[in-house]
């Protein structure tokens, strides 16, 4: 019997006879935790959710929830008997019922289980949908429909909640606030959740664990901090797009040498023999700006991101390196100007491939 709350073991996830994700193994250790699944469009993230919900069957591996097999080649519990709720990305509200009636259907199921931890009014307030309760699904926006669908799913208080891009249609201005509220409610009610998203920041904020799906397989399954700081493959680095790989030579226990940036010091997370040629992951926060430094690079682009600027700098070898600078920094650098980098370069942990 599995120790994990949710255990997915060697499963091939397929839809319409086409395998999307092969031999996947991951899970959720404890009740109330959230797992975020990240990956590019069409990779099979939704297929994973549909399969866990019981809407698709499997021919290989097992899916267990609370020690009970939900899906395997021989067994398949029907969706209506799994006590798993799935909020679809697109509007899946019942078109002939008002938003209120739609949400109350979720509450009806909740009533059957005699769980009373979350009430209708609370969830309406939480997701800010009180104004649309008397409207029909075709009369509301895509973002409102998503929130209504989320409310319905939350009210069922399932054993496992599956959210497919739950906030993809929600306005950017409102999105972060909803994320905060969602995280609070999931944590308070101890609802175990899997969230599919393509927004890595959303995944890092909401998830206790993240699974990165690339090339038809689970490339990395780890906590958000590790996924960001210790990506385990070049593919994950490229997918997250939070840094670049530059060529370097290992010069010692704690140092490397790049011909444009010079010596770079830090702690290797993996041992490489001295003299090895490696690809070093350089993230925007790894380099510091210093006007007095003699290491000057050319500014080719500058993006204003509110709290900071991201400068894109060109090295002599034509590498393009991103660097964060606080937006309150005393002065700004224009494109084509020279930009100083503080030396020696010190990186807390060195990730190489």
């Amino acid at each position, binding site marked *: 019997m599995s120790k994990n709350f949710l255990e997915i073991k060697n499963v091939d996830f397929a839809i319409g006879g086409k395998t999307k994700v092969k031999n996947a193994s991951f899970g959720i250790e404890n009740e109330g935790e959230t797992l975020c699944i990240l990956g590019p469009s069409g990779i099979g993230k939704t297929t994973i959710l*549909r399969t866990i*919900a*019981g*809407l698709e*069957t499997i021919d290989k591996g097992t899916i267990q929830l609370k020690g009970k097999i939900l899906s395997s080649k021989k067994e398949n519990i*029907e*969706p*209506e008997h*799994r*006590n*798993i*709720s*799935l909020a*679809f990305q*697109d*509007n*899946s*509200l*019942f*078109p*002939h019922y008002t938003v209120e009636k739609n949400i109350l*259907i*979720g509450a009806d*199921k909740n009533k*059957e289980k005699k769980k009373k931890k979350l009430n209708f009014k609370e969830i309406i307030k939480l997701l800010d949908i009180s104004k649309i309760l008397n409207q029909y699904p075709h009369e509301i926006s895509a973002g409102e429909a998503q929130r209504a*669908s989320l409310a*319905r799913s939350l009210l*069922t208080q399932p054993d496992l909640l599956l959210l497919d891009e739950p906030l993809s249609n929600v306005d950017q201005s409102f999105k972060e606030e909803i994320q905060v509220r969602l995280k609070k409610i999931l944590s308070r009610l101890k609802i175990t959740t899997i969230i599919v998203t393509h927004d890595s920041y959303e995944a890092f904020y909401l998830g206790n664990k993240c699974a990165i799906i690339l090339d038809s397989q689970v490339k990395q399954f780890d906590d958000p901090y590790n996924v960001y700081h210790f990506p385990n493959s070049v593919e994950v680095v490229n997918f997250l797009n939070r840094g670049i790989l530059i060529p370097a030579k290992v010069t010692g226990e704690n140092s490397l040498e790049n011909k444009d940036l010079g010596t770079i010091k830090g702690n290797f997370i993996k041992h490489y023999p001295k003299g090895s040629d490696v690809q070093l992951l350089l993230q925007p926060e790894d380099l510091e700006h210093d006007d007095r430094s003699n290491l000057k690079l050319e500014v080719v682009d500058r993006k204003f991101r509110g709290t900071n600027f991201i400068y894109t700098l060109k090295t002599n070898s034509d590498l393009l390196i991103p660097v964060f600078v606080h937006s309150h920094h005393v002065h700004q650098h224009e494109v084509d100007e020279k930009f100083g980098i503080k030396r020696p370069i010190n990186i807390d942990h060195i990730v190489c491939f």
Partner: protein
Amino acid sequence: MFKSLNIWFISSLLVSISVLIPIVTVFYSFFEDTSNYFTILKETFLLEYIFNSLVLLISVLVLTFIIGTLSAYLVSFYKFPYSNFFKWALILSFAVPPYIYAYSLTAFFENYGTLYSILKNLFGPGNYNQHIPKFDGLFGAVLSLSFSLFAYVYILTRASFLYQSQNLIDLGRSLGFSKFKSLYSLILPAARPAIVAGLSLVAMETLAEFGAVDFFSINTLTTGIYNSWIAFDDLAFSNRLSFFLLIFIFAFFILENLSRKRAKYHSNTKGGFKQKEKIQLSGIKAFNAFFVCFIIFFLSFLFPLSQMLYWTVKFPENFFDLQVVTLTLNTVYLVFLSSIVLIIFSLISNYGNRVSKNKALNILSTLSISGYAIPGVILALAFITFIAWFDENIVQALGFLSIKKMFIGSILGLVIVYFVRFYSLAFNGIKSGYEKINISVDESSYLLGYSKQKTFTNIHVPYLRNSLLFVLILISLEIIRELPITLILRPFNFETFATTAYISASEDLLEAAAVPSLFLILIATTFIMLTSNYILRENE
């Protein structure tokens, strides 16, 4: 395959198979022995049957194309006095079945008929009969069918015109096209699928028509089938003739499909649609448009209605002789039973298809809706053939009592054959409602703990209630007008307005046929008015 074997799949499969039985029977019967009549007929009347059917078909198609597209073009693109009234008034012609139109045509133009009376009252006694044209025979049948059936072309073409983008019209203008050139080089080709669909329905109804052609004594394949059964008592021979007619119908469909090739008629681009604005007509142009629509409305609806009304008033004794209450109850009884059966089984079949997602079942369902393309006469006779075979080879062979009387000349048999004939109406009506329900709605329902049954009863049925109402009225309309199936399979002494009118007319008592015909037109008109918004797609 076996994963999809559930109660819904099996029910759906059974419904489709039972609808297919009469169709298969017709094909099977082709290989059976017939009497010598077939050889005799082959050498004598068969060519005439085929020739008459072809002439009738082509003439009706040409006329309905002209009337249907012209009226649809006028009400869709122009504003003129009463254009909004004509928009729905033109569909009232549906309330007048071709056989009632035929009675009106004969009654008006016959020697000493209504036109004669009008001329006599206006100009005094005279020898008017020799100057009054006679609309009978093949020409009369063409007119009756065309004015009764053009609404199929009108409705579908108008719907297509309605969704034609203003961009298309603007494109014509920017290319310097005249209105006429825009019509034939842009507007009509874009509406081609709708026009062809409308004409296909007209073709099926024309080939299936029994009442009007029988009234005008024209030998077509359909009347041939009926007569060979009545006169020669030769079911196998009727079925063989039916086979020819079916080949005719299927050839028509194949031709239509081939002619389309890979042409694409609809652009699905979002946001590119610009609702077109109607052009305001004035002066002589407005009068011409009004006149054309009025003439079509008058000839297709007002003329037969007033003729029947005139005779009802002129011969009131026929009104008192008619058992209106009994006929109404009989009609309501048939409508009620058939609608219930059709709606329940079509719902089950649609849902079965939806949940099992089985391709074989899908193909079978598509085949089973072909019942609508098969003339009522053929279906009724195929049903009798099948029951006779089943009774002889299965029921009685097993030592049970004969079941023939249970099915032939009974309400049960009537309802079963109505079911086969109108199954496509119910199935497609419900299917179009189902297509608007996203599959994720079903999945949400399962995930909320609803079983398939509960999803069906709590989610689908309430959502489909408008479609169901529409289907109910459509079926009612068809059953009220239906003639050959009722005529062949009805129980002894069980009449409807349609059969009463037919029997009176076939006994040359056209005045007596007027009252049931008038009732039939009025009831059908009420049903059409109730559903005009659906039929015209005003609410989409």
